[in-house]
């Protein structure tokens, strides 16, 4: 049988991913995570000397800490299975990627195992995050120089 013909049969019989359903689930889970983050930020603004701008740092740290606990107790993968991108895109998804890789490679020791593999999944997030921030800053700098927008 030809590969093309098989690909056609396979496509016909395989279940289609429910995109609309996944998008709604991702919206709900991602939205809930951000809502929790907003409450934590408000907590830091109200009870500590943080402004809206400076509160983002302790908020991110707290969200990652919560994600770390959820990952360790095996709950985050269940949230992610339900929420998909909604659980992967917020900072908690990044925390989950780092912590899960650390747990996985603990058996190989702390230096080569945990240290060497911690950013196995999250490394590309850091690389492309920094790179895209650089590109955006470059574009904005040029636009400001030409007077199109202001800072």
């Amino acid at each position: 049988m030809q590969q093309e013909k098989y690909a056609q049969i396979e496509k016909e019989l395989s279940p289609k991913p429910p995109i609309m359903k996944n998008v709604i689930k991702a919206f709900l889970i991602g939205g809930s995570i951000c809502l929790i983050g907003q409450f934590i930020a408000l907590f830091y603004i109200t009870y500590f000397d943080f402004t809206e701008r400076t509160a983002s740092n302790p908020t991110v740290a707290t969200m990652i800490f919560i994600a770390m606990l959820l990952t360790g107790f095996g709950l985050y993968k269940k949230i992610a299975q339900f929420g998909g991108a909604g659980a992967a895109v917020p900072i908690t998804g990044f925390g989950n990627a780092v912590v899960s890789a650390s747990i996985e490679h603990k058996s190989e020791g702390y230096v080569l195992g945990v240290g060497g593999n911690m950013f196995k999944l999250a490394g590309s997030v850091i690389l492309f995050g920094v790179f895209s921030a650089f590109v955006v800053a470059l574009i904005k700098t040029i636009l400001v120089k030409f007077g199109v927008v202001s800072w």
Partner: protein
Amino acid sequence: MKKLSIILLILGLLTGCSEKGTYIKNTTPYDEHSVENVLMSNEHVKLAKVLLYEDELLAGIRVNTFSRFKKKAIANKIQKKLEREYPDLKVTVSADSKILLETEKLINKKSEKNYRKKIDKIKSIEKEQT
């Protein structure tokens, strides 16, 4: 359960932020009317708490939801206008809700004992970058 969640959702949408207007506490001989004029003439401002104390003018503002993206520019504009109106005062205008919250706390305080210390503190955290 479904009905309850819909009702909660509608209530949440309706209640949002309902406080509006300009609240000014003036402990100085300066006239506070031009502050009110400047703030009320800006269509983006929803709520403002202003405190005039000794040589300080402290204003915390909240802008309309969809103006939040340019709230820094709005605060800067108001600051410039107020500086023109009150050349003798040190003007601090911020759209950060922390400043609004702290200014409100100061306004509601009965004694003016710790005002100097508190105002310095608010101005210092307002300047913090990270």
